[in-house]
């Protein structure tokens, strides 16, 4: 048996990590890994969310009227809000091309984040031997494998979105500025310094360019880990809050009431974090696009 984090933290007879939740670091497959290993609880929820979004979009646009009402009104409000944000960041020229990607990211991430707050998500499941250590369990311990898991609490999802974004980012950047333009933009001297001083600072800008390239390469990692970390932490927090009373020897009624009331503030916090993280992810993507195409945009003006 490998040593778990909880074992490592045992201190004077009290294991503080017991206060942490029992959310697995990874999404768990429903079936045998050799056949349907890809069908994890988060993929299942992601598919459901995808269908939900497509159904809602269809409902909003099927019979679109000039004077909107009902769900079309809400959808238009959402689209208009996201579009204005995107337009502010990337400019009027790029906004129509970039908007679908950023809006999809925002909607998909927001719904995925909030989906985890629904009752039963992450809590209803079946007992199984943990395939991977959690913060409190070692790999061999029994734990509940949740039937449903928010997709953004799975690194596969966040990394997938970040990688897709980066591929589209490369395409957009090359299309807008060209390969040479991008290299000039990244490594070239800035500030219009010419002459001997300009020549002297070329190595500095080359070094800055290398740092910039490393920063670009790390963007998918930062994007995906930030979102995953926030949602995963939120899931853990909700579990901890819901199970807090169980750690103490309290009457059943008190334990039950505590499991309902204690997570309530956390619930609102997670609502906020869910929306905020979706916006952060989408806005950062917009900023990355703006940064790489800003030169072209400026020339366009």
């Amino acid at each position, binding site marked *: 048996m490998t040593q778990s984090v909880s074992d490592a933290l045992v201190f004077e007879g009290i294991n503080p990590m017991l206060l942490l939740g029992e959310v697995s670091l990874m999404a768990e497959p429903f079936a045998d890994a050799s056949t349907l290993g890809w069908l994890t609880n988060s993929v299942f929820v*992601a598919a459901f969310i*995808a269908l939900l979004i497509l159904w809602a979009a269809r409902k909003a646009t099927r019979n679109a009227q000039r004077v909107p009402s009902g769900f079309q009104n809400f959808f238009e409000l959402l*689209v208009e809000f996201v*579009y204005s944000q995107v337009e502010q960041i990337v400019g009027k020229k790029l906004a129509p091309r970039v908007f679908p990607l950023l809006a999809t990211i925002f909607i998909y991430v927001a719904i995925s984040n909030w989906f985890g707050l629904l009752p039963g998500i992450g809590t209803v499941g079946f007992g199984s031997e943990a395939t991977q250590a959690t913060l409190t369990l070692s790999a061999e311990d029994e734990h509940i494998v949740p039937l449903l898991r928010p997709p953004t609490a799975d690194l596969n999802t966040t990394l997938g979105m970040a990688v897709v974004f980066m591929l589209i980012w490369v395409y957009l950047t090359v299309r807008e500025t060209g390969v040479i333009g991008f290299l000039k933009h990244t490594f070239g001297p800035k500030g219009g310094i010419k002459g001997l001083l300009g020549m002297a600072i070329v190595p500095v800008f080359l070094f800055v360019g290398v740092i910039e390239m490393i920063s670009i390469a790390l963007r998918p990692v930062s994007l995906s880990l930030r979102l995953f970390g926030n949602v995963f932490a939120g899931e853990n927090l909700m579990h901890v809050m819901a199970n807090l009373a169980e750690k103490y020897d309290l009457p059943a009624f008190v334990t039950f009431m505590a499991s309902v009331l204690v997570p309530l503030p956390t619930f609102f916090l997670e609502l906020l974090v869910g929306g905020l993280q979706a916006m952060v992810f989408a806005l950062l993507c917009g900023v990355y696009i703006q940064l790489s195409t800003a030169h072209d945009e400026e020339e366009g003006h």
Partner: protein
Amino acid sequence: MDFVTSLIGKMPTLLAAAQGGSDASIFEKFGVSWPKFLAQVLLFLIVYMILSKFAFKPILAILEERKQRIADSEENLKRIAAELEEADLKKGEIISEANARAERLVSEARESADALAEKKRNEATSEAAQIIAKAREAGELEKNQAMAELKRDFGRLVVDTTGKVTGKVLTDDDQQKINSEISAQISV
């Protein structure tokens, strides 16, 4: 404080435990694998493509159309306001012109009415004078005729009476003389 010190002291052990104490890569620890990754990428791409084509495109088209209509409406509103202002100015001009014209017409009408009235008055006066003159002439004529008849009758009466009283037949000269005297006396 003891807890924190102890926690810091246990950090290496904790990190080792967090790594599972094995050589598993970070991806494995977080459950990242190609099939799961591709499944999520595929789902996201499907949502992205369908939303782009069937949701955002029509909604953006509607929003653009609405924006255009609002811009057109505002343009029309500005044009209508300008036209209204122009129409107001024109209306003022037309009204003042009409007023001037009406005043001119009224004054012309008044002048022409005055002239007509003067003319009619003059005509009436002259007609009245003519009527009076005619009446006077007719009266004079009738008076003269009556006088002549009176003289004649009176002369005849005097002649007859004189003849009967005197018992002599008056000659033409006598009659002529009597008539002349009577006429002279009547005229007086």
